């Protein structure tokens, strides 16, 4: 009885540790993915929507495609790439 209870306790603790480790890896992975998306500019539209909702809530925001084109147009309006 006591042996099997102890065994169950150990298994329980192992399970908890495993779940915690998975959650930790998951959150680190998600943070890394967010950083990569942010770095590459993949999340630019979402950021724009957040900014728009905060500062210009009265006007409708651009849609995804308009926003992308507008961003490219502004980006390549000056010296952007060096030798």
């Amino acid at each position: 009885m006591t042996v099997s209870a102890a065994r169950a306790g150990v298994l329980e603790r192992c399970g908890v540790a495993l779940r915690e480790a998975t959650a930790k890896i998951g959150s680190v992975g998600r943070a890394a993915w967010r950083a990569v998306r942010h770095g590459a500019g993949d999340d630019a539209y979402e950021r724009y929507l957040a900014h728009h909702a905060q500062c210009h809530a009265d006007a409708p925001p651009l849609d995804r495609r308009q926003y992308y084109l507008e961003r490219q147009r502004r980006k390549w309006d000056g010296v952007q790439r060096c030798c």
Partner: protein
Amino acid sequence: MGASALGGIALQRGESINALWIVTAAVCVYALGYRFYSAWVAANLLVLDGTRATPAMRLNNGRDFVPTNRWIVFGHHFAAIAGPGPLIGPTLAAQFGYLPGLLWILIGGVLGGCVQDMTILFLSTRRDGRSLGKMARDELGPVGGYAAMIGTLLILVILIAVLGLVVVNAMQHSPWATATVFATIPIALLIGVYLRNIRPGRVIEASVLGVSLLMLAVVGGGWIADDATLARLFDLDALQLAWFVMGYGFAAAIVPVWLLLAPRDYLSTFLKIGTVVLLAVAVVWMHPQIKMPAVTQFVDGSGPVFGGKIFPFVFITIACGAISGFHALVASGTTPKLIGNELDVRPIGYGSMMLESFVAVIALIAATLLDPGVYFAINSPGGLVGTTAEAAVQTISSWGFPVTADQMHALAAQMGELSLFARTGGAPSLAVGMATIFSSAFGERLLAVWYHFAIMFEAVFILTTLDAGTRVGRFMLQDFLGHAWKPMGETSWYPSVLISSAIVVAGWGYFLYVGVIDPNGGVNILWPLFGIANQMLAAIALSVATGILVKQGKLRLAWITGVPLAWLAIVTTTAAWQKVFAVEPRIGFLAGANDLAAKLAAGVLPAKQAAIAPQLIFNQRFDAVLTVFFAAILWIVIIDALRICRRVASGRAVMPSTEAAYVEIANDPAVARS
């Protein structure tokens, strides 16, 4: 540790040294420079203030002005400043041996280039992200401002021409390279449509797709080269390729950015960061021996890659990687509008340039790990060493760098090329070096694939710079012409777009054309011209910076930007003087023109060369005028800055500072981090 690594290099003079010593020495020099010098400059000269709201915070509009995480800005800024320049310059300068280039990259970088980038970034951040030309006009006066503007336009033209020449030389009579580089165009178009219509703005997906297609293009180029009929289709000579590059540049400048420029830039940025990391890892992993001597006999000016003594030409040849004026344009463009905290100016300005400088060190290693004989065989123009393989190997071996025709043929076969003789411009020899490193680290049997991967990588870089540069040149020209006739200044009026794009393309196309027909390889003429123009721009940037800092009461610390400025002024003026007036025909433009004219008059030139001689003579004289013009612009700006400094020193009135007023950072986290 840095000292011991440098000591390692010093002790092993005369015998071959390991690349690991060079990497260690470089990393230690950068660490010291960043930890001590940049911190000291930031605290005493610039007086960075972490409580001061940056333009990104004050003017946050969610578009241009957005406070951004410092690592993200670092990545963007590095991607913007690092192009093909730091790969090509060190490769060409390797003709002097590895030591001169290495020392200039390290010392010039830590004390010059990094300081320039950080200072300009700082000044622009304090002025709401104003451009270098605007700061020059506002703070020094109209003379310096216009000089900076004209200088920028000219440097763009020369830069694009020389980069175009590098691509052409890498592709000529190489069906594999040509097919691969051509394939990058439809791939970019496809990604452009994907990013606009299919999945708007999903940059990561599109880039992964694009990079996989590029890899396929590298391998597929090999299949095309193996098929006799298809190979003939892509076996083009230099002149055909030059016309193609011009047509491409014109098309790229007039189509919308989303179609070609934006997707190409995403692809090249992904490739750039990936390849640089891969190369650095592979160099450390393989730690190859450096085979080039520390210093070669060509320091006397007789070098085959380009003519001219070690002083001043090593400092002209390696611009990007040590100090590059072009960076001042980028550092006063988008980056200052993204800075989230003024203290970030140091890691972003100084740090990004340090990393670019490290890329230059890696490129130098890739060039010097080749057998010197092989290096010279690839980089020496046929007009100098002889156009047949036998003649070339004989000339090069007679310099004390033994190489055989069989060795070159075997190497070309391994790389999947027909010939590697006289492939000037630096790209092919760098690609051979990179392929050697990669294949020894990641699989011997893929040598040819790695070689063409490296060529594709450089071509993608270069074509991005070519697109972006032609477009910027077009905008500048339209702005200029708009003063004369209003409609020309409208950037979306089609006739104006076509005319101004055609003028810009004709400008660089001319230099590209002459570079291609020149039997001595146009790189010999164009790269020094580009170096002079780039260092001139750096000197202009440092003059503007010094002038502004002196106005702000930093006269006693003015040497921080003043010493690199003085050095560049000496180097650029000496180089310009020698390029114009030297009596050696390979160095002086005028002597070169006269020499050719005399030969033409005496009738000693073969018919083919006699036919193009008048164009080459005209071009050399034109280059001489251009060089004088560069030097004149440079000294106008320096004298203008000195005038400001003298007025400040004697307490007379100067133009008021345009620095934005101090605003304390709001403690509202929603504003501080968006």
